[in-house]
């Protein structure tokens, strides 16, 4: 079988869905190819193993190898990461945009223009704070930070609350609810369950894409332009598999996190939602927030020190899991290996990263105590439990990143955009350097990890670049 389109978009997440909308609404013939399935929101329990099976790549068990290895997750479904994520919205900070513009020489880039695109995004996906009281795990972050005099705030989310003002009953305005229907209304076609294995490239131009279907058959797709929007791991991997040369996959940037579980006197656990407060006193280097905390995830947070922490597992209704996230100076790599379907991903934390994780976990434990935690269970091998300030110091001393469970859900910067040849895989609008009709338009383009939840940055840049493409008629192809 074969398909044809003017514009092929690979991936339907934050980058792909917005790109498709801009191009389809401009009248272009757009085909979106998505590897995962269309899963209706509400048909799976958020943060459950069933959701992991249906909406995450490899059941959510993916890892960047290193010392320590860092567990990461990627959405794999129509809407990509936007379907499974926490929905916490942060605009890219203005001074960061300025730094990116300067350091990566992003041409024709006015941070104010990007922020006005962020305004549009906020309307389109209904970014708002919760209408009613915050959940108890969120209150923990707020009250602990307030007691310490640390800067904190409620982070708005892309949510609607059709069932009243219960903070935990919002409906995520993900891409399947917002941009994808818009793109399809404007004529874009979406096909799911097809993985693009590689692009066929001839003389600096991609001519077709080879897709594989679950039954093992293949399909050829011809196009005039291709936008690779598979996310910061899959996009560079696909480009490498296709023989694209350049600065691709060499500078993976993430926000590594370490976790702890805290037990309180009263029940507070919310199994299927996350807290909306974040603590930004030490930002952009260090941020604190709350994680999903269903009983399985509470058990996971205790397992590094199971012999002594196991006693707490039945207390999960009185427990919630929290994280300290850092803006890492380390970098990782995405490497495709011939005949292997998936890339090898590595990540190296620097000494400074490790120290930041150490102090981050200690400060987070302190915050928990201030919020009234009876006992805190840090997630690293050999961790002591923490009941008072003295224990915080002991815990901080005992911590080592190599013994910790380090995770991330924010993956960026594998095809950085800009005009600095030795640092950038794509030009100032996402076109891959040295190739006439191959564009990247997803989290891979962000020059560094932004230090805040990245989806808003991904969407705003994707819209900017797609508009530029329309305005210039894709003239360089």
């Amino acid at each position, binding site marked *: 079988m074969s398909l044809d389109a003017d514009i092929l978009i690979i991936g339907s997440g934050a980058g792909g869905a917005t790109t498709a909308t801009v191009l389809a609404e401009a009248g272009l013939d757009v085909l979106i190819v998505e590897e995962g399935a269309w899963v209706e929101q509400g048909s799976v329990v958020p943060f459950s*193993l069933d959701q992991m099976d249906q909406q995450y790549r490899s059941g959510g*068990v993916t*890892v960047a190898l290193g010392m320590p290895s860092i567990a990461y997750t990627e959405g794999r479904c129509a809407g990509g990461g936007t379907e499974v994520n926490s929905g916490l919205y942060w605009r890219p900070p203005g001074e960061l945009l300025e730094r990116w513009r300067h350091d990566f020489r992003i041409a024709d880039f006015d941070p104010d223009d990007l922020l006005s695109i962020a305004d549009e995004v906020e309307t389109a996906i209904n970014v708002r704070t919760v209408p009613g009281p915050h959940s108890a795990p969120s209150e923990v972050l707020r009250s602990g930070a307030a007691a310490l005099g640390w800067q904190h705030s409620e982070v708005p989310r892309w949510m609607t609350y059709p069932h009243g003002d219960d903070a935990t009953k919002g409906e995520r305005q993900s891409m399947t609810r917002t941009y994808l229907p818009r793109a399809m209304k404007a004529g874009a076609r979406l096909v799911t369950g097809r993985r693009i294995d590689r692009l066929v490239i001839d003389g600096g131009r991609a001519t077709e894409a080879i897709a594989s279907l679950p039954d093992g058959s293949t399909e050829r797709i011809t196009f005039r332009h291709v936008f690779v929007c598979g996310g910061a791991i899959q996009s560079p991997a696909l480009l490498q598999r296709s023989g694209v040369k350049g600065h691709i996959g060499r500078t993976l940037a993430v926000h590594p996190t370490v976790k702890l579980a805290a037990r309180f006197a009263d029940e507070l656990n919310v199994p299927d939602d996350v807290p909306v407060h974040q603590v930004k006193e030490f930002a952009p280097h260090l941020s604190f927030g709350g994680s999903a905390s269903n*009983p*399985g995830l*509470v058990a996971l947070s205790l397992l590094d020190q199971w012999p002594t922490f196991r006693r707490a*597992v039945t207390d999960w209704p009185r427990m919630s899991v929290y994280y300290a996230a850092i803006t890492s100076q380390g970098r990782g790599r995405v490497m495709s*290996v011939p005949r292997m379907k998936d890339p090898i991903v590595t990540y190296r934390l620097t000494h400074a990263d490790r120290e930041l994780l150490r102090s981050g976990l200690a400060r987070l434990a302190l915050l928990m105590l201030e919020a009234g935690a009876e006992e805190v269970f840090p997630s690293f091998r050999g961790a002591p439990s923490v009941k008072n300030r003295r224990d915080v110091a002991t815990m901080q001393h005992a911590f080592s990143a190599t013994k910790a*469970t380090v995770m991330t859900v924010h993956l960026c910067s594998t095809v950085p955009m800009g005009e600095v040849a030795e640092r950038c895989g794509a030009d100032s609008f996402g076109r891959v350097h040295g190739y006439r009709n191959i564009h990247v338009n997803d989290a891979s383009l962000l020059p560094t990890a932004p230090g805040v939840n990245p989806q808003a940055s991904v969407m705003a840049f994707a819209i900017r670049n797609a508009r530029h493409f329309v305005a210039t008629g894709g003239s360089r192809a």
Partner: protein
Amino acid sequence: MRQVPALPIVGSFAERLLVDDLPDLQPAQRREVVAFIAHRVDSLPSFTRFGVLAIGTVFRMLVAVPGGWLGAKLLMKLPLPFVGEYPRLMRSLGFAYVWEHWPTTTPTGALA
């Protein structure tokens, strides 16, 4: 390319680990958990799966010989790159499954 199924390689070790960590888990539950762990290993990205099965083969061989479990426990404690991550992976998949499916499970694996 056809994959080697994970269950024969990771099954016996995962089972032994669960017996150790959660001694009161019912055998039928344990079988269900082990099947889940193997299913997840089957869907790992290719390179990770290859590494997990390679390390898993060593642990499987240890578990198969008399007294080998002690050797396996020793190996788990050594600060060898990636080797320690194998039991961690088995445990995390297993615990996530146990407490998601039977949230009142006690610390020893009994159903409350």
